[in-house]
């Protein structure tokens, strides 16, 4: 056998590690003492951090979990347009928004209905709140979204009314208008009763449409869908201007007078020659023609009446002018785009004013705009005795679909409609209208909402959205203060924790460093022997390093077990205050990994001193100092 002097590395890479571990095992009691010393430092730090993390996390998750903390409430009522709601619904940070009516219209009387549909329980006053698909307050509090004739009660409301899921609730709505007391009723099915967490309010969540109906009734309007009586909110015609024909011209002064307090702000004379280009027809009858226009608002019937009154006895003929409206006509499976031109004259008037081109049809005088849902296809050769009904889609700023009786034939894209109808369709530029076929009436649709119910996706978006709404001039109330409180608490607890952890780490490092250094001092002889056997100076640096890491790891394991036992105890002690799956004292695997990494760093630093001692240790002195 001969020595193998070409071997560069001594032994297996695990040799020093195994020696270090065996040395620790040899001095088991001493090693355990060191492990306990590390535990003594790390254990309380783990518990402290676990408590800090657990409690803050608990507060945070409760904040996050409770939809109420994601709510943004308007402070004062305003007018929110439907477009605004559409825009808001698109925003990713908003999980739910629904328009809300005025506060005053939300209060109703309610009682549980018995088998005979009459009230069987106590009548209580409830607040109606609108809801809709995705409402987190309902969905996250064991509720469902109510159907068209359903409702969801808060716990408090259900207790007051003695209602439970599956009951029917009779609702009475009262209104007083001009000393006239009226009441209407409806019956809703209780789809769900919410958890108490949803809030201590006596509220009933209903679909927005139900709330709108209630508001309309309270405002004195009729609600035909429910059979509730009241007045109709009929739509009115608006015009772009008024064409006036007079047998004799107006003086300058008369012109000025006619645009004073009439609603019209400008007047100009019209030459018969240029008329057709601007208005689509021209007047041949001798006389003077003037065109009255308004500046900001469109002209309404009362403005036209003003002019008519002032020109009484002058033989004036008034022709309201509404700009043409584009429409799409749907008939069976075909459709085409047309221009609807309004003409404000009857056949008699046309004859008298010698209007060219003279329409070849007879415009029926209509007493209501809806009664004049008729259109005449332009063209001299058209037989206007033929008629059919088509659906006309009108898309201005608001859209409307109405049935239209079309007279005549041909594919001309110009159709004439009565001025009254044109004026109504022109109103679509201003506000929504709907056509009620039952009453054959144009009714004004709802324009704006007084408020909203809004929930953000997470609590972190509440403050940003609050500020954005503030920029739009909408002041809102949020739970931002509560959220900020938790964030600040977390911040301060972090500071305190880091101070304590740093002190503990320093103490732990000092303990470990002293022990490892002492251990090297005690083992000078053994280390000298190892050098003699052929371990290089540098390979033996790993000896205290490995021991430090093993001891620290041991301390880490013991401290972690200690932590788990104690966190179990703490969570049991507070079991009444916390819900299932919640934990007051907890750490994530990430935290343990972080702690392990920090402890490893501390072990390395602590072993440094001992390693330096090993570097300076001469085997000669180690062996000969006996």
């Amino acid at each position: 056998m001969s020595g193998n002097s070409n071997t560069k590395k001594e032994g297996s890479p695990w040799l020093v590690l195994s020696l270090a571990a065996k040395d620790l095992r040899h001095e088991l009691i001493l090693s355990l003492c060191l492990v306990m010393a590390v535990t003594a430092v790390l254990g309380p730090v783990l518990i402290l951090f676990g408590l800090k993390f657990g409690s803050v996390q608990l507060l945070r998750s409760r904040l996050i979990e409770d939809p109420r903390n994601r709510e943004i409430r308007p402070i004062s009522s305003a007018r929110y347009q439907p477009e605004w709601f559409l825009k808001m619904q698109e925003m990713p940070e908003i999980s739910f928004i629904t328009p809300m009516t005025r506060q005053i219209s939300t209060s109703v009387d309610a009682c549980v209905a018995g088998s005979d549909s009459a009230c069987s329980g106590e009548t209580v006053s409830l607040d109606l709140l609108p809801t809709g698909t995705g409402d987190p307050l309902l969905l996250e509090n064991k509720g469902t979204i109510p159907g068209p004739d359903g409702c969801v009660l808060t716990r408090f409301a259900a207790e007051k009314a003695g209602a439970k899921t599956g009951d029917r609730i009779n609702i009475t709505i009262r209104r007083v208008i001009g000393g006239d007391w009226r009441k209407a009723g409806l019956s809703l099915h209780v789809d769900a009763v919410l958890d108490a967490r949803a809030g201590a309010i006596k509220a009933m969540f209903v679909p927005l449409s139900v709330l709108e109906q209630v508001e309309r009734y309270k405002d004195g309007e009729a609600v035909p869908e429910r059979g509730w009586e009241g007045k109709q909110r009929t739509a009115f015609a608006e015009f772009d201007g008024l064409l006036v024909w007079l047998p004799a011209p107006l003086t300058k002064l008369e012109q000025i007078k006619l645009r004073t307090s009439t609603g019209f702000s400008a007047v100009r004379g019209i030459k018969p020659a240029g008329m057709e280009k601007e208005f689509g027809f021209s007047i041949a009858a001798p006389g003077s023609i003037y065109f009255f226009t308004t500046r900001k608002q469109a002209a309404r019937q009362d403005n036209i009446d003003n002019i008519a009154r002032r020109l009484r006895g002058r033989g004036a003929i008034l022709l309201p002018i509404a700009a043409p409206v584009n429409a799409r006509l749907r008939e069976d499976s075909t459709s085409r785009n047309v221009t609807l031109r309004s003409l404000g004259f009857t056949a008699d008037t046309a004859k008298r004013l010698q209007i060219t081109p003279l329409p070849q049809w007879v415009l029926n005088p209509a007493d209501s705009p809806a009664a004049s849902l008729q259109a005449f296809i332009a063209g001299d050769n058209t037989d206007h005795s033929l008629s059919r009904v088509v659906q006309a889609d009108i898309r201005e700023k608001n859209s409307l679909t109405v049935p239209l009786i079309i007279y005549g034939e041909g594919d001309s894209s110009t159709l004439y409609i009565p001025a009254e109808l044109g004026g109504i369709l022109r109103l679509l530029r201003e506000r929504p209208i709907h056509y009620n076929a039952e009453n054959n009436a144009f009714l004004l649709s709802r324009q704006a909402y007084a408020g909203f119910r809004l929930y953000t996706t997470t609590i972190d978006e509440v403050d940003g959205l609050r500020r954005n709404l503030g920029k739009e001039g909408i002041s809102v109330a949020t739970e931002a203060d509560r959220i900020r409180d938790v964030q600040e608490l977390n911040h301060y607890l972090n500071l305190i924790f880091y101070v304590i952890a740093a002190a503990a780490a320093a103490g732990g490092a000092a303990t470990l460093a002293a022990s490892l250094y002492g251990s090297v001092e005690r083992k000078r002889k053994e280390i000298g022997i190892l050098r003699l056997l052929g371990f290089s100076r540098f390979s033996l640096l790993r000896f205290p390093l490995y021991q430090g890491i093993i001891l620290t790891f041991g301390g880490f394991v013991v401290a972690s077990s200690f932590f788990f036992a104690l966190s179990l105890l703490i969570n049991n002690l507070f079991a009444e205050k916390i819900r299932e799956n919640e934990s007051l004292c907890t750490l994530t695997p990430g935290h343990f990994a972080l702690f392990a990494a920090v402890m490893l760093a501390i072990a390395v630093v602590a072993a440094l001193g001992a390693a330096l001692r090993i570097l300076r240790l001469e085997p000669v002195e180690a062996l000969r100092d006996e």
Partner: protein
Amino acid sequence: MNEVSDNLSFYRLKGVSRRREKGGIIFELEIPELIIRHGDFIAVTGPSGCGKSTLLDILGLILQPDCNQTFTLRRSGDPNVWDDIATLGEARLADLRKAKIGYVLQNGGLLPFLTVRENIELPARLNRLKNTRGRAAELAGKLGITEQLDKKPAQLSGGQRQRAAIARGLVHGPAIVLADEPTAAVDQINAVDIRNQFSDLARQQQVAVLMVTHDKKLVLPVINRLLTFTTEKRGTNHTVSRLQEVPANEWQ
């Protein structure tokens, strides 16, 4: 170098000295010439303080001499190359120690935290030799300490500890075993026994042994060379100790 033709030699020292100063007293060890060959069993005797330990440390490559004309070690893999100790770095010296030298220290010098078996196996493991367990067991058998293999050194008697140390010194097949008073702490009967086992094993493995001992009588039957020191005072505080080989006819 003119003695290169001597194929059995592997240690060559010429004009090597090491000077030590302590409290104003100067002690100097001079090695005029020392050549160690395979198979040598050399005893080093002399009074305490004459430089026996210093000689061991220099040969063990853990103490660099102050000056030397020649201090070379034949390379195992390439017998024609001699490594000059003075030019080697710490890691290379550790490699040489690991592979070529075995130690038997006073009181054994066993590591207290390893079992006897682990102690014996350690140099073999360090050299990544095959069948370390078999080698250790075989040596332990020959030394009669098989029963003690799984004990810690503290549980062993002085004689058993020295036997374990001898096994550790030989396990990796070194070129030389440096032994420092291996029998000083055992009784006479045990000492004779250990001496015989040591010399038998060394001869079987063709390992040179350099043994520092104060018990010349004990080792005379097994040695082939005897080294001693002559001391000379060069002033009140300056002692020079010179290594000298005692001619065979003077001690045989």
